[in-house]
């Protein structure tokens, strides 16, 4: 039977331990001046980075640094602001995460680089350059341009922006409400473009993933999609105006707009389909090696 003293001592030691655990996480809050359209460059490894625009000519960083983070470096000079999470030299890649919430002048150019930390950007109007290995990238707002790159992280851009460049190896890319120009590339991930509005240019490429596109195209659109063994599915409005050329070495081509694919001598098994929608001002070029191509009408 435990004596009261023993029980008190137990409780006491627990109480002693708690503050130590709490101290392992560091709260941070820093503010530095920044020009309205300068560059803010952020580097984190694990955890998360949320960048939001505001109207002040300042950059504010808040959040928590986990154990194993040596320090958070925030430097501001004529070129811009640099925010970097530093891990101790000896402990490379061995954990150490930081959750950062960063407010920057709206028109800043924002560059973020992480390994596994997820990146979120919103309410920004400058150019965004976001890169992660396995973290996801999510963009909203009205950035002037977006470049997003991951190895396995998901990329989602639901922004009213006229220039998007997204690349991943195995993550998936989802672009909603796209207009203007878009480039997206994946090896085994999927590319989904939804609710595109008057898209002017598209260049979508996957090796073994799927490309799915729905939306409207500008009259003189330059649209190109290509897969090796993945599939391409386009859902276009009835009123689309473009010359369509679809080619596949060994995949099938299905077309709800009417004309059927025919065999071509050049490829032994290959098929091609070319026809014109509307006045045929734009160009839609689809090619696969062995994947299927499907054209749907809305």
């Amino acid at each position, binding site marked *: 039977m435990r004596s009261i003293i023993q029980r008190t001592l137990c409780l006491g030691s627990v109480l002693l331990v708690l503050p130590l655990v709490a101290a392992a996480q560091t709260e941070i809050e820093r503010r530095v001046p920044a020009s309205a359209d300068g*560059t803010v*460059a952020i*580097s984190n*490894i694990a955890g998360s980075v949320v960048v939001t625009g505001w109207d002040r000519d300042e950059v504010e960083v808040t959040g928590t640094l986990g154990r194993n983070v040596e320090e958070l470096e925030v430097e501001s000079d004529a*070129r*811009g602001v*640099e925010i*970097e999470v530093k891990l101790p030299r000896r402990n490379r*890649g061995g954990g150490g995460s930081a959750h950062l919430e960063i407010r920057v002048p709206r028109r800043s*150019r924002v*560059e973020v*680089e*992480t*390994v*596994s930390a997820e990146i979120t950007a919103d309410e920004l109007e400058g150019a965004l*350059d976001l890169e992660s*290995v*396995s973290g996801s990238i999510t963009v909203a707002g009205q950035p002037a341009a977006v470049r997003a*790159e991951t*190895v*396995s992280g998901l990329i989602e851009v639901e922004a009213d922006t006229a220039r998007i460049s997204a*690349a991943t*190896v*195995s993550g998936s890319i989802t672009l909603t409400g796209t207009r203007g120009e878009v480039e997206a*590339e994946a*090896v*085994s991930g999927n590319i989904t473009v939804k609710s595109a509005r008057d898209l002017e240019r598209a*260049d979508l*490429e996957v*090796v*073994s993933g799927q490309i799915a596109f729905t939306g409207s195209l500008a009259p003189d659109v330059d649209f*190109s999609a*290509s897969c*090796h*063994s993945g599939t391409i599915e386009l859902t276009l409005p009835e009123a689309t105006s473009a*010359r369509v*050329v679809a*080619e596949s*070495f060994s995949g099938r081509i299905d077309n709800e707009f009417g004309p059927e694919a025919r065999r*071509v001598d*050049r*490829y*032994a098994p290959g098929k*091609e389909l*070319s026809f014109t929608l509307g006045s045929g001002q734009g160009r839609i*070029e689809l*090619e696969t*090696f*062995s994947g299927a191509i499907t054209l749907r009408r809305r």
Partner: protein
Amino acid sequence: MTNQDTMSCRETQAVLDELVDGQLSAARERRVREHLAGCEACRHEETALRRLLAATAELPRSLEPPTDLWPGIVPRLRQRRFATFTLGRSSGWRGWLLQAVAAVVFMGLGAVLSQLLVSPAISPMPGAGEPLALGTAAAAPAEFGILEAEYLRAKEDLWLTAYRGRRDLPPVIQELVERNLRIIDEAIRELRGALQANPGDRQLESLLLAHHRKEINLLQRLARGSEV
């Protein structure tokens, strides 16, 4: 002598290579030699191994190639450039590695790069009654071989840098990248096969080059993945 000190034949033969290479600790080596002193079968193995290594050491260091290879080398010796290539990114974290890798790729591709950045337009297929349109940026047949050779060389350089650095990445990412490299390799293999059956096919050629480019992009990503 306790049971622990006696080595079995199996144990001995497992470390014969290390014995012969001088990589055993003094204690271990002593025990192995003790075993060998009393075991003809293992001595026989040791002798065979030493004989193999002796024969190998006797192999000629230098071998004459069957034909003079110099004529095949001369045309490939270009005027050497001393370009220093910078990427001009504002970010200060791009390691020297990315610069070095990019330098290798871009120096290798040289003047050819501008052609490759613009994917050759798909030449419109002649429909009924339509005149045959000429392909726009499609490379002349002879050039495909040169372009592919450039890509392959860039890849070779990258492979070494990227492949060696891959251990810096978390294992999950390593596997993922290797898996995706295999996917691209598979695509390249299929395209090559198709191209063999349909030589000179522009479509297939441009697809093949595009996949080489994808592999290079992936390798570049791998090469700099360990630098943050």
